[in-house]
């Protein structure tokens, strides 16, 4: 089974000792090992495509936001020709941050230390006291720009990578594009970020939330038990494990490590349990129960922007939660409200490494740009109440992950394993239109194991 060149840690452990492909186990020590963390920064975060921002955050020429690719800080800008650039926030002169604000607008970024200045596209303008040529006479001005990353904008989402010649963004998305289009590329005006992201830091390794983003559906039944007790999801506190709401659907995944859980609303939520799509056309279904974030006025746009097969899936068994490798969580969920409505909640998270022992959780909250203002207002509230810093779902995750981290440091505990042995195996459901690795039925460990295989492949590939 072993072919690839890999690495050996100072205590002799190899990648195959950490990610055990024969037994579907991962050593808990991967969450705390500092040497491994350094390798991850080089082989994953300096290489693969990373989500940084949304283009509605920087609508005008000169607008910028500052974000992180691993531990490397970058400036995400829009120039006068509407092109988006991602440049390292490190002045080539003395290493100072060129931007000290999190967001702003500038047609020239002037480093506050010695005054070297750069355009939004990262190119060098000059140093003060031009006649003295304080940038020296060794390198020409064309060599003194900020280091640039390769950029791709997909559905308004701004991705970047340092791997200039590496796999294309389409290769990175692979078969998941068909499903992701249903979330990000379905309306004429697209998504809008409703405000700056929520940001908070958790004392745990980035892979603890990372592997969960590989579509861990099973934890919902127990960790998020309060959703069942609150009557939001089908069943009652007593019948949680008998009814197993939200567990049955089709998990879709791919060898790049991305995945999404596609769920029928009627099987998940109490308030939708009486809805029957039997004999209804796709359009009728969309009007009976629009997918999260879609309002009546936007339904015709779905047919325009997506294929008939994609619209049918969105109307019947929409993708709801999942993630993109390595550190993105997708939550485009039905969100029943205390006032009886349900306009959904659309959120993306990135889990940005902050050293081996910490991760920054960034919560991006969206609505469709052309949704009615009141719907946007409701959706903002839904997302804040369900996800992120105070969200009743994710506050339980945020309290669990640091405890796994604490265990990952024990000299005996670190050699325990995470087990992904409840596997279904790829199986194409009858009539399913999309591609990818497909897992119909009860949600199992397959998609998360695919996440670890994507991790293995990048870590093995020096």
């Amino acid at each position, binding site marked *: 089974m072993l072919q690839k060149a890999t690495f050996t840690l100072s205590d002799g452990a190899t990648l195959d000792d950490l990610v055990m492909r024969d037994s579907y186990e991962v050593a808990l020590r991967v969450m705390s090992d500092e040497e491994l963390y350094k390798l991850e920064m080089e082989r994953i975060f300096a290489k693969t495509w990373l989500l940084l921002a949304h283009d509605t955050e920087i609508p005008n020429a000169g607008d910028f936001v500052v974000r992180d690719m691993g531990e490397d800080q970058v400036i995400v800008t829009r120039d006068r020709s509407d092109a988006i650039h991602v440049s390292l926030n490190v002045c080539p002169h003395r290493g100072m941050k060129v931007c000290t604000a999190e967001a702003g607008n500038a047609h020239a970024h002037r480093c506050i230390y010695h005054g070297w200045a750069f355009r939004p596209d990262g190119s060098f303008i000059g140093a003060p006291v031009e006649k003295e040529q304080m940038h020296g006479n060794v390198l020409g001005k064309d060599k003194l720009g900020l280091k640039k990353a390769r950029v791709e904008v997909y559905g308004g989402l701004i991705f970047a990578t340092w791997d200039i010649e590496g796999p294309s963004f389409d290769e990175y998305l692979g078969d998941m594009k068909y499903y992701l289009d249903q979330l990000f590329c379905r309306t004429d005006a697209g998504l809008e970020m409703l405000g700056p992201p929520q940001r908070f830091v958790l004392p745990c390794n980035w892979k603890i939330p990372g592997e969960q983003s590989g579509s861990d559906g099973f934890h919902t039944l127990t960790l998020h038990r*309060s959703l069942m007790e609150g009557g939001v999801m089908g069943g009652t506190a007593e019948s949680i494990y008998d009814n197993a709401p939200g567990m049955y659907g089709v998990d879709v995944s791919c060898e790049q490590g991305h995945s999404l859980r596609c769920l029928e609303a009627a099987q998940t939520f109490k308030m939708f349990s009486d809805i029957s799509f039997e004999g209804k056309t796709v359009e009728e279904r969309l009007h009976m129960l629009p997918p999260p974030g879609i309002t009546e006025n936007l339904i015709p746009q779905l047919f325009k922007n997506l294929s008939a097969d994609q619209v049918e899936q969105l109307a019947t068994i929409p993708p709801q939660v999942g993630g993109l490798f390595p550190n993105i969580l997708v939550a485009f969920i039905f969100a029943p409200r205390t006032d009886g409505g349900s306009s959904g909640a659309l959120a993306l998270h990135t889990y940005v490494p902050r050293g081996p022992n910490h991760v920054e959780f960034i919560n991006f909250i969206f609505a469709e740009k052309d949704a009615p203002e009141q719907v946007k207002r409701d959706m903002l509230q839904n997302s804040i109440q369900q996800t992120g810093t105070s969200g009743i779902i994710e506050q*339980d995750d945020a309290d669990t992950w640091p405890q796994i981290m604490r265990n990952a440091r024990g000299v005996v505990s670190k050699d325990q394993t995470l087990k992904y042995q409840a596997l279904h195996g790829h199986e194409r459901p009858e009539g399913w239109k999309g591609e990818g690795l497909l897992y119909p039925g009860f949600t199992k460990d397959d998609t998360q194991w695919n996440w670890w295989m994507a991790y293995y492949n990048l870590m093995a590939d020096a």
Partner: protein
Amino acid sequence: MVNYATAAVEKAGVMRGLVSKNRVPLGSEIYNRILETLYDEAAALDERRFDDWVAMLEQDLLYTAPVRLTRSGPNKDRDVMRTMMHFDDNYQSILMRTGRLSKSAWAEDPPSRTRRFVTNTRVAECEAAGEYEVSSYLYVERSRFDNPHNETLSAERRDIWRVVDGAYKLARREIIVDQSTLGMSNLAIFL
């Protein structure tokens, strides 16, 4: 969306100051009663007496916590971003949260041990009779499990307290946290 990357000077986003000029002086009867109410509220929350806390809330309550953003230039003092919040709650959703805390809310089960310090309290009369604008500083120490290092949070709270049947009840609270990136793992506690 309000463009927070803009160079234009925003009118929103400012934090400082009580709006009303009609100050209620320190040491006056009303000031003392309100300060006492803030202390009672902190005790109810620290002791996890959520029913007592909810009894202090008005049914038209709005309870929010905008995010902060590090900005420079013309907007450097306009860093309270009310387009995005850490809390965006009303009376009903607070009941949903406190109801959850009585069941399987693992984020607070086992519970944190908390200590809320309320200081720098300033009070002014609102235009509506019997309503008071109350600005206070909040410092929270939160002890979790066996971790000897507390998580902490500092904030200014801008409240409106209303006299109802001789007691003061909370009608508005805006919590202005100081961190742009929170160092607290979650906000499963009330501020």
